[in-house]
């Protein structure tokens, strides 16, 4: 579904991604972790071309991201993305947040888009908030709306960029629950997250990044099973985040 092939990216002279290659198969859930500044958010943003890269290619469901002939908006409309800071549109109601791209990008009728949006809102347990504005919801609620907004486009794959990092601890689980449910339904997912509990529960593979490179890329059982077999850098990272 996603194949990342030798991607290199520079900010001026500074290389942020070095020879990154990996693959996410249909129905697979891949968790990307690593210390901050390791390039994991940058990598996931390269998948839907929110971040450009200079070398290599990424192919999403048969479409090349690097190909200059690719219609990027069209590609992005099939790739759902959830951001660290939710990025709901504050000037629009929850319903409008859920329907605007369906109407303007996919050309669905307002009635059809609203029906779809409300159904997804119910699925994330927020049907009573349809008429509100994002500012009136808690962080966890906003992030659930953001997930519903992405799902409303019927994406072939979902990208999550640290979806719980900006949340109060007590709100993390309500968002993770939605993500677990999604994973169990067979959605193809690539998640940048530090939630190792989530990774243990639903991930098929775990990717560990450091300094712009993919250091580990292995099945979950392997990644968590035998920590001593991991690279030194990954061991340090795991020691820091798993002791809690």
């Amino acid at each position, binding site marked *: 579904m996603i194949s990342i092939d030798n991607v290199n990216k520079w900010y001026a002279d500074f290389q942020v991604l070095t020879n990154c290659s990996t693959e996410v198969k249909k129905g697979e859930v891949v968790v990307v972790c690593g210390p901050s500044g390791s390039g994991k958010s940058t990598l996931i943003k390269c998948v839907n071309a929110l971040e450009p890269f200079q070398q290599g290619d990424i192919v999403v469901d048969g479409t090349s991201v690097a190909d200059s002939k690719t219609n990027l908006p069209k590609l992005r409309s099939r790739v759902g993305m959830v951001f660290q800071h939710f990025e709901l*549109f504050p000037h629009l109601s929850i319903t409008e947040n859920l329907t605007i791209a369906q109407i303007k990008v996919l050309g669905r009728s307002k009635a059809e888009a609203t029906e779809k949006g409300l159904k997804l809102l119910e699925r994330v347990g927020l049907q009573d908030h349809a008429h509100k504005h994002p500012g009136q919801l808690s962080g966890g609620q906003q992030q659930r709306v953001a997930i519903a907004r992405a799902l409303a486009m019927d994406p072939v794959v979902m990208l999550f960029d640290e979806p719980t990092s900006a949340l109060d601890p007590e709100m993390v689980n309500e968002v993770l629950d939605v993500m677990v449910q999604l994973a169990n339904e067979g959605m193809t997912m690539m998640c940048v997250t530090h939630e190792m509990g989530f990774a243990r529960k639903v991930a098929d593979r775990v990717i560990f990044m450091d300094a712009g490179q993919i250091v580990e890329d292995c099945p979950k059982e392997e990644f968590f099973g035998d920590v001593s077999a991991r690279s030194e850098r990954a061991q340090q990272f795991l020691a820091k985040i798993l002791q809690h």
Partner: protein
Amino acid sequence: MDFSAILPALPGLWDGMLLTLQLMVMGVLGGVILGTALAMLRLSHNKWLANAAATYVNYFRSIPLLLVITWFYFAVPFILRWITGEDTPIGAFSSCLVAFIMFEAAYFCEIVRAGIQAIAKGQMGAAQALGMNYPQSMRLIILPQAFRKMTPLLLQQSIILFQDTSLVYTVGLMDFLNASRSRGDIIGQSHEFLIFAGLVYFTVSFAASLLVKHLQRRLAV
């Protein structure tokens, strides 16, 4: 001081005020539209377009409004004659309006540009991630938020324009100030009429800026 002559002159002064308001409202509308277009160009990735817009803005912010008004009054008919080959009188009002729009656009451009830049970059990312192209993201997501944020500044600039419209007296337009002055001159009471005009300008501008402050507080929430 004898203010009794003002009352019978009010209908004439009101005509002047209408012209002032007309110039201001049309100048602001045109200025905001042209200014937004300029802001788009300034933010564009195309260096040539961005530089051209920046030059325009810097030029008009570096010359006096009075010069622009006079210049357009004399230049626009000349240019039109050059293009069409015949005399096309466009009148002082139109030439002043064009001057105001061109001049104010430079200021509105900077307000709009700042407004757009104040919207978090993530909003553009979210819009694009949903498949919106750049124009859609701007029109549906960024600009509505930016305009909401900059409404107080736009209104503040409009109040300044309200006062600056008085410069049209140089090309003989009967705006509120010119109407007051000429009426006072005719009956030898220019002091009274000018004091009255000053009061009116003060009252309107001050009330409007109070309103803007109130709006600012409400929009800040």
